[in-house]
């Protein structure tokens, strides 16, 4: 009996301790929008920093922070400095859900910027109640067309062209340049890959072989089996790679090992096609030489481009030790868009105000993109087009056939059209002065 009592006491004690801990550590409720003070704006990002996706995309938050540091050193946004809180989600949806919730509840950020990953962020958006809390979700780092759906993701703004758009433009490109060859698609088995599959369907491209793989399941042996199977297709098939860079690298290296590189025409999708990362992951320069890739930016090695050279300078000074590539370019570009959005929202900064600012003025923001931004009261879609180029052994992307041909379209059944867009000039020294 005594043992029972003592044990019972112990269980009550443990319950009270738990309860007490929770009550004592409670914070008072916030009245105004969190994350904004007279001197600081807190932004948050959940993104892969470690793990195999971290290998490919780990540079993004550092690039964003470098640009923010540059702006902070030049007066900030109406005197407020931007602070970026970064949380690692290892490209796992569950972790992204909890980390994003932590950003909102624990770090009390004002807005999210550059959330990375389709499956990760779609989970995180619902789990962290971003819609209910009206948290602006700026320039998500994924091409999933679903994020442009305002009724489902009212506070999200895409920036990258969607995978459906990419697949549609790619379909037109393949039908024109590689008519008569079979086309094989290797894509990630989630909304990202499926978005692409739907885009190819909309683009009326016949696929001889479609392989959807779960993100974590591919390894060297399996890829080799896959490629061996594909090598049975006659002619010179086109192989489209719709996956992350680490998987693209895996596939290229397996092709090298099996001597199959010249058997196929390789087209690397935008997500996994960054040449510098591929080379850094061990792919041979001769392998990527001639591979086709799509982009909507100028090439990161093109220092004659005004935006590229300005970002390179900022990278030199505020992101020491990190080599400048397309990933860094993309991060800084999103950061520049963010600063313009914050400025457009005015000195009295609120979450609603920020969302409206992007809707009303976002389409005129200056950015490095060679295609237009499509923000409006009815559209949260950013860039909507691509140009195709060929990689050379140095990792530079040059326009296919020598002339730059940009195409725009939508994520649904709209036609693919040639674009005559010219982008706004770079603000002086890369410091926006818009309002």
């Amino acid at each position: 009996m005594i043992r029972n009592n003592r044990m019972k006491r112990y269980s009550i004690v443990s319950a009270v301790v738990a309860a007490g801990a929770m009550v004592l550590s409670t914070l008072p409720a916030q009245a105004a929008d969190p994350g904004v003070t007279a001197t600081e704006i807190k932004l948050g990002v959940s993104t892969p920093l470690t793990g195999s996706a971290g290998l490919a995309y780990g540079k993004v938050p550092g690039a964003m922070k470098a640009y923010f540091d540059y702006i902070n050193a030049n007066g900030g946004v109406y005197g407020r400095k931007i602070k970026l809180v970064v949380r690692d989600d290892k490209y796992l949806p569950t972790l992204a859900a909890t980390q994003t919730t932590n950003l909102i509840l624990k770090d009390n950020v004002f807005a999210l910027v550059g959330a990375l990953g389709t499956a990760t962020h779609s989970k995180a958006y619902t789990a962290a109640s971003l819609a209910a809390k009206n948290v602006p979700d700026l320039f998500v780092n994924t091409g999933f067309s679903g994020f442009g759906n305002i009724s489902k993701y009212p506070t999200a703004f895409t920036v990258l062209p969607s995978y459906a758009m990419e697949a549609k433009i790619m379909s037109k490109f393949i039908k024109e340049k590689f008519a008569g060859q079979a086309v094989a698609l290797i894509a990630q088995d989630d909304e990202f890959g499926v978005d692409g599959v739907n885009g190819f369907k909309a683009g009326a491209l016949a696929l001889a072989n479609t392989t959807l793989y779960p993100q974590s399941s591919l390894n060297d042996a399996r890829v080799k089996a896959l490629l061996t199977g594909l090598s049975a297709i006659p002619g010179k098939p086109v192989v489209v790679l719709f996956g992350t860079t680490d998987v693209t690298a895996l596939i290229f290296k397996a092709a090298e090992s099996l001597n199959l590189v010249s058997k196929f025409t390789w087209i690397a999708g935008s997500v996994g096609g960054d040449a510098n990362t591929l080379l850094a992951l061990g792919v041979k320069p001769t392998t990527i030489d001639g591979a086709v890739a799509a982009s909507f930016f100028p090439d990161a090695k093109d220092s004659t481009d005004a935006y590229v050279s300005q970002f390179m300078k900022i990278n030199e000074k505020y992101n020491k030790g990190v080599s400048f590539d397309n990933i860094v370019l993309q991060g800084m570009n999103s950061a520049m868009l963010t600063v313009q959005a914050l400025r457009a929202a005015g000195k009295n900064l609120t979450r609603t105000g920020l969302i409206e600012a992007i809707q009303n003025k976002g389409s005129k923001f200056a950015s490095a993109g060679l295609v237009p931004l499509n923000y409006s009261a009815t559209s949260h879609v950013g860039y909507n087009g691509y140009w195709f180029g060929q990689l050379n052994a140095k990792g530079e992307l040059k326009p296919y056939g020598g002339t730059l041909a940009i195409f725009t379209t939508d994520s649904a059944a709209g036609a693919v059209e040639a674009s005559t867009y010219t982008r706004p000039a770079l603000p002086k020294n890369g410091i926006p002065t818009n309002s």
Partner: protein
Amino acid sequence: MLKFITAVLTSLTTGSIYALMSTALVLVWRSTRVINFAQAGQAVFTTYIGYEVTIRSGSYWIGVVAAIISGALIGAVIDRFFMRPIFKRIKSGPIVMIAPVVATLGLLGIIQAIIGFIWGLTYQSIPAPVSTDGFQVFGSTIAFSPFNLMVLISVTISMLLLTLLFQKTNIGLALRASAYSPEIAKLSGIKVDAIRTLGWALAGAAGGLAGMLFVPSSYLYPNAMDVLLVFGFIAAVIGGLDSLFGAVAGAMILGFAINFATSYISSKLVFPMAFIILILVLLIKPGGIFSSRKGRKD
């Protein structure tokens, strides 16, 4: 035909690495009656040491030797200074069964944390010492490279050496006796404790070799060998935890089953296949394929 040959060869390669892990687990089980989950951590840690040595010396093979030696040392240290105190403290009660297992789990976590702390979490690479391009057979390239062949040969040699040790030497006899019947072994004058530590050392060495053979085809990071541990364990259980031959056989069976399933059916079947094989084997023979009737005193 090409697909079949490729499948057989990749099965041999993956099976041989599983064999190293399952051997290590069986070695520890036979001497201590403990499933050493920390094996994954030990193997990765020693592989990092091998990596450092390879980078500094410029030679992969010196790195392998370093990994094997440090693996043996670490294995011995863990038995002497970690497992033995635990066994001393936990003598009675039902906790005896799970405490050592749980302890090795804790050790695994600590080792991986230490690795992350020292070397960071970014993926490292160890370049292979020989070519990883496939051999040319009948005009086309197969998915089997000189490196894969090297792995196969290394594992075969190690297995032969271990078998020689166990069957033909006095120490081997002592190892087998202590595992089978510690009290009688002690009466015969065998230092059971020292022999047990030797078992752990051998297991650690096997793990280090496994890591050095595995990493050139993949990446090196704290959790790099977790999956190998799982497959090694499954292989060991399939083969019956009591025999080294069973460990190798189980690993080969597992390797073939998985590779053929992923080659011919679907690449998504890796883990389910492992589970199915395991359940089938254990349903028919609860002690694993090669287990003997006696000897399962747990």
